[in-house]
């Protein structure tokens, strides 16, 4: 029987010899939570970061545009209307129509919804996977840690756009499958990050104390290590959403994005780009602007969060 099994057997008797109050109070006193996540801390941070506030506001605008906008500006995004193709901006179509007759403004909202959904889902998936992986590696140490981290190094050595391209060229991508693929190849950075964080946390007094009290490894990871690494994790999620949106746009631009007629910003830009010599500017700049503003907003917010919550390893 290993030491690990002993300790997890002990924890089934709640708190053993230590009185429960002492347990939580002592741990709370020892646990610094300085880099942990709390909504109030985030608000406090943002107050001192005009750029972060700008990012957050921009992001709210983008979400409002994509999710509430269609309620105000109803458009048909399923049937092509070739009679109305490539109209310049004018009454009824504030941003004109594209070469299939879709209203550009409505298509921007639809495309944005898909991009944001994929970005969020991919980031959540990647973060969950990466956090658990990194926490296990960091806590295990030794050979297992070395092995797990070499796996991460190896996968990080191949540009993950290649993998995503290969997979999405082969399978007709929808929003969920694309998020899973992107998330499935972008958990590596969060794994590295969380491992680094766990390595510094595991020698802190409150973790040692918890260990001495016989907390199981699972409980240690879930109640002490991950909550205290949450700051770093949240900063990284914000960056990951931005990265995922860029990847979706790149895939769409290269022609390996979502199946037509589902809109996404990248493929919208690609179809506009073919008409660049025809001067259809409304097919290029509005959608380009949407991508830049969304990614910029996320990056600004992430940078502001990083200043107090933690760092992002590159």
């Amino acid at each position: 029987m290993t030491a690990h099994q002993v300790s997890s057997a002990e924890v089934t008797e709640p708190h053993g010899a230590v009185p429960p109050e002492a347990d939580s109070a002592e741990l709370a006193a020892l646990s610094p939570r300085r880099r942990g996540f709390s909504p109030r801390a985030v608000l406090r941070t943002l107050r001192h970061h005009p750029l972060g506030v700008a990012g957050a506001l921009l992001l709210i605008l983008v979400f409002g545009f994509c999710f509430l906008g269609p309620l105000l500006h109803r458009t048909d995004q399923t049937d092509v209307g070739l009679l109305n193709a490539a109209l310049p901006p004018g009454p009824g179509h504030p941003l004109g129509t594209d070469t299939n007759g879709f209203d550009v403004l409505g298509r921007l909202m639809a495309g944005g919804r898909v991009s944001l959904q994929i970005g969020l889902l991919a980031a959540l998936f990647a973060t969950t996977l990466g956090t658990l992986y990194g926490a296990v590696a960091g806590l295990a140490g030794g050979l297992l840690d070395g092995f797990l981290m070499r796996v991460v190094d190896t996968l990080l050595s191949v540009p993950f756009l290649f993998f995503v391209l290969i997979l999405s060229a082969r399978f007709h991508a929808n929003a969920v499958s694309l998020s899973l693929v992107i998330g499935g190849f972008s958990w590596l950075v969060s794994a590295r990050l969380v491992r680094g964080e766990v390595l510094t946390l595991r020698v802190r007094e409150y973790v040692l104390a918890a260990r001495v009290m016989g907390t199981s490894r699972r409980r240690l990871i879930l109640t002490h290590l991950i909550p205290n690494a949450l700051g770093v994790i949240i900063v990284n999620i914000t960056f990951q959403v931005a990265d995922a949106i860029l990847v979706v746009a790149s895939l769409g631009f290269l022609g390996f994005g979502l199946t037509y007629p589902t809109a996404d910003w990248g493929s919208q830009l690609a179809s506009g780009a073919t008409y660049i010599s025809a001067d259809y500017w409304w097919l290029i700049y509005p959608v380009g602007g949407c991508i830049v503003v969304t990614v910029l907003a996320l990056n600004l917010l992430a940078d502001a969060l990083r200043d107090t919550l933690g760092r992002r390893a590159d």
Partner: protein
Amino acid sequence: MTWYVLRRTAISCVVLLGISAAVFFLLHLVSDDPGRVVLGQRASQDAVADFNREHGFDRPLVVQYVSYLGQLLHGDLGRSYKLNENVGALLGQNAGRSAVLSLAGLLLALLIAVPLGILQAVRRNRLLDRGATAVAYVLYATPSFLLGLILIAVFSQFLPWFPAEASRSHSSWVVLTDPRAMALPVITLAVTSVAIFSQYQRSSALDQLGQDYIRVARAKGLPERLILTRHLLRNACLPLITLAGTLIPTLLAGNLIVESLFNYPGLGLLFLNSLQHEDYPVLLAYTLIGGVLTVAGNFVADLAVFAADRRIELSK
């Protein structure tokens, strides 16, 4: 030093082996069987099975992987399904053109970013620094294809200075010696990297400016220009060396998009075409080369930092 290099080499070999396995199994997991790809959808099932048996594609995947590794050790990257050419030769035709494009882009990026970053650090929080940081933020959020499109719209449509596409010639010599056609792809690549490089250079220069040796140099009365070029530059560039090494995957992916946008006949375009035709040996070889470059880039970056700053040995 020798021990360090040996250990790093060993780790690199293991990583390379892992990359080859990951890519090989992934590709075979998602691909049709090769007979189907080569003979087309209308070929009979028997013909496909015959083809696969003849070329050994019916063996267990692990056996195929080991024999692929054997081939690799002999420098044989296999044969393209669709172009019926040796993959090594095929890549060789395009590699030079991609390398010139990337290196020119990287060089231009460094030429802009290094002085800019140092200047930003020296003039910290002044107008120039703030402005450059703001531009970097926006550029960082701009995908390279959008930037390329804007450059095309401005410098090819509005002002007809440069062509929007790379030279159509099959000869590398013609492609590479057409500076007007090279200009926009190189500028696109460079500008997207400047945003990252200059911000790193800025923070690393800021770090160095607070160090004692700078204070000593100033106390000695050295002219500020000399302090910056002789003392600061060398030390402040270290993080950038590492960054350029670790950024290779990103740079390669950027290359892919830029090559596709400008129709530039390089490895990235070959990859995309092979992807459309399910030409897996080419995809496999290209992804492997990407992995090798990354590992080599990290390796060289570590050695370069090591050579530039001998103190690292003491802390190891």
